[in-house]
């Protein structure tokens, strides 16, 4: 059972899973509480566009996906801020454009590439040391920016109250969008583009069911995200099934179990 720990690719995958579990679950609490679940899908599909562009240009796809996805995140935030369009409409527009661009880029490649499908569904075999370093840097940035949690939580509760207390809510919107965008990109290899949005939503949603305060919700969301990532990777190895799907199914199972237990206790 523990022999997988001696396998280099699993070691990398487990480290990556821990880092990705932390990041997605931490930023996911803001996604859930602000009703931005669709943002995860939108940015994931933006990441697809970036990955496809990277494949077309014969560059490391994730290095292209990061700026591409960040630009889309900024674009979504900007259009939402400047128009009276709802979040879902704005995200839907960028989602569609990114996906369409991704399809065209893959088509222009003019040759079969399995890379695109690996990024769509995740591939723990392809997690590299570079990916881990990049994820670690993002975790360190997140920890450095941890004082911002208080501002983001405040404006998640009531934007106007936060503005009245001189919190730069618009600047924070951009910052949060960018960090979520980068989180999605670093998570792609573990979970896959198709399912990463679920990773942003399910652990915080589960945590929300069992916590009365936002700080405890954040803390337990991280615990749930990291544990389900590790256990999911472990299960996927032994069952020889895609890791991303396994992790998400495990998270969803936990969510429904918690929901049922909570309902029976009422």
């Amino acid at each position, binding site marked *: 059972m523990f022999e997988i720990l001696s396998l280099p690719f699993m070691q990398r995958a487990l480290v990556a899973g821990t880092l990705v579990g932390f990041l997605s679950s931490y930023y996911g609490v803001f996604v859930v509480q602000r009703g931005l679940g669709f943002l995860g899908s939108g940015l994931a599909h933006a990441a697809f566009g970036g990955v496809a562009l990277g494949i077309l240009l014969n560059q490391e796809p994730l290095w292209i996906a990061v700026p591409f996805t960040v630009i889309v995140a900024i674009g979504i935030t900007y259009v939402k801020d400047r128009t009276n369009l709802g979040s879902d409409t704005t995200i839907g527009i960028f989602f569609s454009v990114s996906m369409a661009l991704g399809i065209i880029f893959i088509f222009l490649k003019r040759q079969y590439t399995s890379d695109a499908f690996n990024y769509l569904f995740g591939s723990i075999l392809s997690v590299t040391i570079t990916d881990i370093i990049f994820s670690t840097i993002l975790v360190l940035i997140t920890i450095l920016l941890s004082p911002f949690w208080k*501002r983001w939580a405040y404006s998640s509760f009531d934007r106007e109250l936060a503005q009245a*207390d001189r919190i730069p809510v618009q600047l924070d919107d951009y910052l949060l969008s960018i960090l979520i965008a980068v989180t999605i990109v670093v998570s792609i290899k573990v979970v896959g583009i198709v399912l990463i949005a679920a990773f942003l939503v399910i652990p915080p949603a589960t945590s929300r069911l069992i916590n009365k305060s936002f700080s405890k919700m954040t803390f337990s969301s991280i615990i749930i995200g990291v544990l389900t990532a590790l256990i999911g990777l472990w299960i996927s190895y032994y069952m020889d099934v895609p890791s991303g799907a396994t992790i998400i199914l495990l998270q969803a199972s936990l969510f429904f179990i918690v929901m049922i237990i909570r309902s029976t206790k009422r």
Partner: protein
Amino acid sequence: MSPAIEIKNLSLSYGDIIVLENIELTISKNSFVSIVGPNGAGKTTLMKILLGLIKINSGNVKIFGKLPNEVDPAFIGYVPQIKTMDRSFPALAIELVTSGITRRWPWFVKGHEKQKSLEALSLVKATNLANRTLSELSGGELQRVCLARSIVRNPKLVVLDEPATGIDAIGEADLYNLLEAYQEKSGATIVMITHDWHVANHHSDFVLLLNRKQVSFGPPAEALSEENLRIAFGHIGHLHKSKLINN
């Protein structure tokens, strides 16, 4: 000594749409002022200008002698409309009150913050609500907690946006009693938006009657005259209300 609020020739428009026009008034410290007007009169906009949330096109607004966005937020306690508040947000009442002290959301409530928050809750007779979640509170209870939050820093100006919305008559009466008690204790200036002329008449030192323009500003008996109400609302409502005001 500067007044609490000084507004000179304030106007605000968005393109061709005039939101506020030529507002001019001075509110002295320790006053209780109601802003009354129909829907779309610009009441909430005016309140947001006072809070520094909206920039004006022309005119001058000073809060304690400073521009609104230069005033230390600790000087101002704000009670938003509870109907716009996210009650599904996972939070305890004590955390909401503590956010009024720290001007940030608390990761955890520290000892001295808890003490101050409980003191504020006791002023509004809501200490028993400290460990309830926002979703467990009734409208009136949430309003009390929001009021506690607004006064926890002993502000010199308390601004309330339709505080009676969503609460019953008893809760409403309690709320105004608590406001007046706080004002008496602290000497704070109170500015309240309300639709209810009777409330404005009964509780206010001064009333600003607004319908984009300043219809009147003064003691309730003058500001809420039949003629002024007709100008502001297009009618004077039920006859018994106007009789109450004129008596």
